[in-house]
């Protein structure tokens, strides 16, 4: 039983390959089901976004799992293996778990700390569950991964600081205004970054926008796009009076907003005035920034903020990496304790069988006992069994998490003479089938493997 990741991302594969080998939304369900029914594969989840394509599988053997996963990709996309294998990464067991955790936390993304991938992985997992391609292992692993992703974002500042110029402007705006509702954004010019910045302000709650442009037609076109009011550039002074946030990105050769113009509008306002100058050459005279309650940021200032935020995200990523290591350890411990389940079941079955035999013997030798008396005796003998088993069961779980678990559990089975019960259990269970039920998928984990007449435990 192994966990395997086969895939590529924006770092290992060019966009031309990524677009050829992306799972479409309509076909995704069919693909994940087919992957699950591929030989050697017991559970499957497919994560497919514009930046990554990854197959997460539980397989009985690593080399066959890897081989069939690659074959599946070749057949599904009709792309020869030779064209994509060099771009693939293969992660196994702990490394695969670590990779999934790294992905959900946004540490493997193009923009470190982005949160979109967490939603995408969650959706992929939930859809895989709907298609019944997950079992005990992936149900636990993906739930743990999603919880970790949420925790990483809640407990660190990983995804909290803007890493694009337009978002940096919005983030700065939040240091001036508690909310953008009721604020007026004045967009001057029709530069792309300017429009994007204005759009972000609007998305963050700014409910009024004025668009000024040298060309009236262009102003109307941009205003229509935003549901804003278009005005000619001649109404600049009037518009400045109404604005709280000014985003300027014209192609003018010199400053169009002077210190004098701002000074004239200041007495009429009590709230701060935020000026964002994205134009090169600049549209707003720099000494405007010296005025009280006026804050001017140009493209360089915003880029410096982005650089500082990226550095901060890197620092926060270190904290998240430590969290990931802890979670990898926790998952490994969980997997190891799974191996002990059949042993515990066998021990309990054997003990209860003895108890039941004893009850029958009592009934034979004391036929006059009433129903109530029998019930009391049954209850108390069961209690003896349970109390006697409590410590050995606890110890068995501890042994399962220890370094010499296979030998220790073998010894445990030997001391309690559980070999026969285990063999019987193994024979009763249906042979590991392809049906994706939780029981069947977990079966290999919970069953000791008999080799050479000896009982061994592998997870």
């Amino acid at each position: 039983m192994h966990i395997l990741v086969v895939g590529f991302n924006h770092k290992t594969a060019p966009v031309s390959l990524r677009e050829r080998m992306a799972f479409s939304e309509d076909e995704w369900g069919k693909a994940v089901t087919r992957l699950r029914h591929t030989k050697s594969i017991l559970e499957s989840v497919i994560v497919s976004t514009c930046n990554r394509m990854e197959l997460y599988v539980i397989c009985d053997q690593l080399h066959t799992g890897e081989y069939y996963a690659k074959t599946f990709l070749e057949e599904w996309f009709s792309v020869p293996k030779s064209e994509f294998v060099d771009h693939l990464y293969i992660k196994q067991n702990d490394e695969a778990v670590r990779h999934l955790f790294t992905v959900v936390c946004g540490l493997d993304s193009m923009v470190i700390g982005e949160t979109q991938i967490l939603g995408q992985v969650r959706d992929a997992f939930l859809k895989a569950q709907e298609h019944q391609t997950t079992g005990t292992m992936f149900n636990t692993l993906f739930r743990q991964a999603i919880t970790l992703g949420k925790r990483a974002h809640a407990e660190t500042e990983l995804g909290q600081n803007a890493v694009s110029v337009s978002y940096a402007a919005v983030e700065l705006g939040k240091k001036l205004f508690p909310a953008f509702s009721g604020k007026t954004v004045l967009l001057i010019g029709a530069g792309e970054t300017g429009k994007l910045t204005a759009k972000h302000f609007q998305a963050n709650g700014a409910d009024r926008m004025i668009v000024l442009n040298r060309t009236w037609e262009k102003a109307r076109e941009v205003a229509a796009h935003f549901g804003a009011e278009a005005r000619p550039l001649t109404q600049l002074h009037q518009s400045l009076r109404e604005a709280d946030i000014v985003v300027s990105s014209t192609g003018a050769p010199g400053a169009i907003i002077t210190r004098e113009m701002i000074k004239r509008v200041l007495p009429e306002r009590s709230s701060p005035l935020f000026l964002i100058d994205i134009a090169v050459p600049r549209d707003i005279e720099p000494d405007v920034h010296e005025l009280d309650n006026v804050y001017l940021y140009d493209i360089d200032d915003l880029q410096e903020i982005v650089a500082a935020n990226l550095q901060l995200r890197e620092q926060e990523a270190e904290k998240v990496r430590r969290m990931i290591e802890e979670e990898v350890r926790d998952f490994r411990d969980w997997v190891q304790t799974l191996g002990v389940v059949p042993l515990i079941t066998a021990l309990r079955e054997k003990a209860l069988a003895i108890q039941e035999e004893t009850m029958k013997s009592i009934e034979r030798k004391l036929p006059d006992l009433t129903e109530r008396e029998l019930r009391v005796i049954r209850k108390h003998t069961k209690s003896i069994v349970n109390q006697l088993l409590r410590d050995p069961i606890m110890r068995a779980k501890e042994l399962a998490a220890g370094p010499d678990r296979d030998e220790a559990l073998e010894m445990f089975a030997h001391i309690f003479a559980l070999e026969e019960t285990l063999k019987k259990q193994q024979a009763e269970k249906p042979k590991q089938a392809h049906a994706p039920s939780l029981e069947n998928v977990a079966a290999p984990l919970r069953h000791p493997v008999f080799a050479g007449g000896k009982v061994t435990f592998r997870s």
Partner: protein
Amino acid sequence: MFAERWVYDLIIYLYALGLLFAFADLLHKNRRANQLALSLFIAVWMIQTVFIAFRLFELFPLMTPFDSLFFYSWAIVALTLLINWLYRMDLVVFSANLVGFAVLAINFFVARDTSRHLSRLLLSELVFVHVTMAFLAYAAFSLSAVFAILYLIGDHLLKQKKWNRLLRLLPSLEHLQRLSYGFSLIGMPLLLSAIILGVIWAYQTNIGGLWYDPKIIGSLIVVLLYAILLYQRAKQRWHGRRLAWWNVVSFLATLVNYWISVTGFSFHRWM
């Protein structure tokens, strides 16, 4: 007496621990530290409330500087908890409680004056209401000043274009300005009422030279300073840095005014 000392020490330890967790949360965002800090502040506030209630049965509180500063600290904790409940502002809660803690600590360890020699004259309801209102006004002005100082720090960082952790922790300038103004607005009528009640009491008890008393003059200056601040803000003439600096100056005047009663220049000296 032993029980009282035990309560003081408990409050100080809990308060210090709360500040420690709040500081840890500010340095490295940690939800558990934040919740612990808030829980400890709530515990401090509850013990203070119970303590004040007991003192109320014992004798009118606020008769000694100890009681008054204890009440001031209680008001600070109460208001910051309220602010945090309304708008999540970790830095504000930390800064304001740092002031509250400092006052409480100095009060416990330096000015632990629990003298029972209270003047019979002071034991009147009028004085009780007068002192309560004055200290509530001081608490409101303190918070207003905390907001103003944070505004000045935020303004400085934004003007210097220093995008750092402190700036990220600060609430928006508009919010700070609004809250600073709001607490001045609350403090002003409280202080005015306190002065009016105090004057009525002074006339009733025939205290001479009332209008030449440094404390009265000091209080009137404080009222005047805050009145100018509120008027200029209401008329939209002042805003931003100017308003914040005026607020800080007004608060310094408030501190000097309090100092007058501690030093005994006035008939206001504590018994």
